[in-house]
């Protein structure tokens, strides 16, 4: 999936965070899908981190 540009008006002060690492997403984010849900991340390489680490950890915790 592609990079997505955040199109916030200049007066908007809310920020968004990478759903894998917790980094700030100043203007754009990379998206991928997990079970029909969109995950926003700061770099394409974190898609792999999600699948190979976070998803496994979450499965173990469940």
């Amino acid at each position: 999936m592609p990079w997505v540009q955040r199109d916030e008006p200049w007066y908007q002060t809310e920020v968004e965070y990478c759903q894998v690492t917790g980094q700030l997403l100043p203007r754009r984010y990379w998206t991928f899908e997990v079970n029909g849900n969109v995950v926003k991340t700061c770099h394409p390489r974190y898609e792999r981190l999600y699948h190979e680490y976070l998803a496994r950890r979450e499965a173990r915790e469940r």
Partner: protein
Amino acid sequence: MVDHVFLRILNSQLVNICEEMGYAMMRTSYSTMFSEGLDFSTMILEPGGDLIAMQNLNPAMLGQALFSGRWVIEDLGADGFEPGDVVVHNDPYRGGSHMPEHLLIAPFHHRGALRGWVCNVGHLSEIGGMAPGSFASTATDVYQEGLRLPPVKVMRRGEPVKDVWRIILANHRTPDASWGDLNAMIGALNVGLRRLEALFDEHGGESIEEATPALLDYSEAWIRRDIERLPDGTYSGEDCQEDDGVELRPHFLRADLTVEGDQMIVDWSRSDPQARGVINCPYVVCASATYSGVFQVVGGDAPINAGAVRPIDIIAPPGTLVNVRHPGACVGGQTELQPRIIELIQGRILSQIAPERTAAASGGTSGNFLFGGVHPRTGRYFTHYHFEGMGWGGRAETDGNNAQVVPHGNCKNTPIEVFETRYPWVHSEYRLNPDAGGPGRTRGGLGITRVIEVEADEIVVSALCDRSKVAPWGIFGGRDGQCLAYLVKVAGSDEFKTFSDAFGTTSDTKFANVRLRRGDTVMLRSPSGGGYGPPLERAPELVAEDARAGFLSHERAREDYGVVLRQDGSLDAEATEDLRREL
């Protein structure tokens, strides 16, 4: 293929430019924060915002070097900058660390094209908010901590943006110092721009642009090689802040570090939710500390740049202590949480797999003591941010350093002469604390005691520190170091008390806006480092040497180390051997 010799030369030249920028800041600042404390860092970024070189004066600012500048460029867009522009930024919620630290960034153009960026990060001594010195230890949101600046231009095409300057200066208690220090930072950026221009003229823009990715790859490969030598597995550890200044309960940091081949994942997900008080940190602080903890064990002399951190993934969920969400207070994250993250990574976790490269706990607090008031000699308002030296932890081969500012800060103490010249206090005591270092094969470094008396009608003081209850830990059989104590003796009394007992503050170590009067006396006793390895394995000659130096009493030599010293201080080897057999 870029020649490695050229890469090393280029790296040294870029770092030298950063160093020269640093000297410019040191020599031209108004406050003692840069000239004495060296509380700043300087850096160069490639056109996309990746860090290629820095003067790592203050390792606590590594996260800003890696992320903050890049995020400013992404936020504002590189095409929004013209030659001569400078952007200022201190917003923890747009990629900053804590608000006193301001990042300034300027574009570098060569022959009409954008070729990179020069940056610096400096701690301004006063930025407004609810307490003089802008360390409001009892704050519960970011708006109480000072003036928050999202990335905005302070210079446009070389001219000051006066509207922005007016807002900044009107909101700081000591605008002269802010004016001087911010201009010192701008001057340093100009030094960097001139030196980069000369460098690009020397080598040609194309060869530098070709070398930059190779330099990042070189660092990455170095770090990967070192990580690969560690055994695969997941290693965990935890540490805590004793309180957050608002609620008297500990807040826990927990990390799981996974080594998998040449990659490392540091996962902070099990850490406590963000605190109500000021001990939270934003992502960049957690990243600074995590990388610093790892680099104390792997990497050696690898150039620190954006390539060096590629093998290390950090997971810091928003809403936790290590990644605070708006509008949480967070001024203490940089000074108090950061050293604990570093020591948790290297001393608690990596010590499990690389014991020879790790250390026991240092005092683990910056010992922040802030004050402000009207100087009786000048009639002018003053503020000061004072950080205290303490003991570092014992290491595999050497004792911990004595009386040195927290390892991640790398800052210097303000000398007494400067302190008393600028501020209305007088020292009656400033000494190392004997018997305070954690006993071990290598001893924990000694903390210090400083006793100062108020020489003005009124001074407002605040403190933000930790380790008054949970001692700096020893490792591998080493014992704990002495705790911190910040005490006060009100004029006319002959007893030192905690600030809670004397003034009813919630916390002994995190309080704001206590009014002291002429003749009141403060004692700052900083913590000492933990010991490394069993104390009975310490060479008796070293114990005798410590006693001769006044670091250790004969009683503690006997009880902690099993070493018997004669009255004249000489070592009684036979009695020592007998005693150690008994212990």
